[in-house]
């Protein structure tokens, strides 16, 4: 068989798999099943990113879209119960659409209309800003175009994004004390061994991804996601207790990324440049400094979002369902 034919068949299967999974996870009556399907959906999506030659997105999707979001959803389900904490509202997409076929046809029509609109508007695939980025890549301080866009050309967006991440943690903490995730059992031998092996390895990989971002796929976000995976593992093994004792260190880690980013951005004004204009000579070093701080913060922020609750130790008259209260 022809190689292109095989590739097209695989494309078709991937696309079909995504649509079918999306539909069935939203139509599924069993919430646990829906979440598992969502994790598979994320992994398929990571394959698609790889197929479309977007390795940076694939790395992030595999770590965050499938991994971390899956962990978040599963722990949320264990907190909320199998009905997702909303027993009164059982409806799924299937039960709501009295005639699912009609809904499917409407959706299909919408998709066709959107696709035609894009083609009619002349936004032909591949036009983009690719050439503009490549012309100026040598002035950016890094040789990987995605990192150049994230940390130099559109650094303003990334600065605001890091601020949004920190704001999300403040949002979660402002909800008051939450049932902290404490393991029901002390970690067994296997988990203990895994943790002593995996966490240092994850830190190493995160550091490597940070460095690799200068010249290839990788960077602070991908590295931060790996760091967060280590953090989640640590929380699940009961490491949260240690992080409590070092409460101010947690806070410093959370705010370090936005802080350093802001300082560098404003500091450039002191050199007679514009905000976030690094100048071509030292740009690489500034980007590495910002990324290093952002890496730590993203890891800490995503871990905090997972464990929730805020760094307050005294727990609750509060009802903690399904979790052992701490003495």
């Amino acid at each position, binding site marked *: 068989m022809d190689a292109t034919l095989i590739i097209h068949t695989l494309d078709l299967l991937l696309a079909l798999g995504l649509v079918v999974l999306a539909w069935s996870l939203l139509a599924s009556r069993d919430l646990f099943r829906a979440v598992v399907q*969502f994790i598979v959906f994320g992994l398929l999506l990571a394959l698609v990113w790889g197929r479309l030659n977007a390795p940076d*997105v694939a790395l992030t999707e595999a770590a965050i879209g499938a991994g971390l979001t899956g962990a978040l959803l599963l722990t949320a389900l264990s907190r909320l119960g199998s009905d997702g904490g909303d027993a009164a509202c059982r*409806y799924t997409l299937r039960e709501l659409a009295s005639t699912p076929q009609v809904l499917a046809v409407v959706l299909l029509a919408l*998709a066709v209309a*959107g696709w035609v609109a894009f083609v009619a508007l002349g936004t032909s*695939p591949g036009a983009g800003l690719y050439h503009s980025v490549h012309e100026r890549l040598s002035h950016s301080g890094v040789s990987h175009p995605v990192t150049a866009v994230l940390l130099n050309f559109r650094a303003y967006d990334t600065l605001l994004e890091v601020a949004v991440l920190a704001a999300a943690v403040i949002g979660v903490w402002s909800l008051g004390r939450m049932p902290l995730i404490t393991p029901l059992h002390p970690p067994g031998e296997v988990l203990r061994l895994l943790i002593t092996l995996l966490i240092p390895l994850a830190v190493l990989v995160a550091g490597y991804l940070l460095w690799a971002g200068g010249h290839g796929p990788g960077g602070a976000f991908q590295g931060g996601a790996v760091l967060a995976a280590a953090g989640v593992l640590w929380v699940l093994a009961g490491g949260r207790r240690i992080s409590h004792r070092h409460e101010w260190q947690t806070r410093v880690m959370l705010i370090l990324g936005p802080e350093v980013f802001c300082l560098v951005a404003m500091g450039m004004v002191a050199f007679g440049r514009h905000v976030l204009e690094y100048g071509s000579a030292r740009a690489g070093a500034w980007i590495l400094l910002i990324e290093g701080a952002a890496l730590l913060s993203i890891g800490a922020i995503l871990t905090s979002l997972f464990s929730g609750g805020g760094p307050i130790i005294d727990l609750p008259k509060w009802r903690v369902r399904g979790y052992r209260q701490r003495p």
Partner: protein
Amino acid sequence: MTSSLYLFTGFALFGIGLAATIMVGHWVRKILALNVMGSGVFLVMIALGYRGPGLAADPVLQALVLTGIVVSVCTTALGLWLVTRLRDSADEGSSA
């Protein structure tokens, strides 16, 4: 062909997600639907940035989608904690 196929898939995912976000009342399912909708948007963007076999996708769109994925995990986390809080407030209300 490849780009068009994934562009179309992106629109389909967005449609399914949008329909479910509006129609489904259940909180956790709404969050799942939002994520599916977001994935659809990301897919449209990366499909537009596809430049053919062996060529890296448009870096600007890759950077935007990367940012989007990280932000969407944050909104998911915040949403899930909000649901937890809502559930517990509802429980307190009914037991009092």
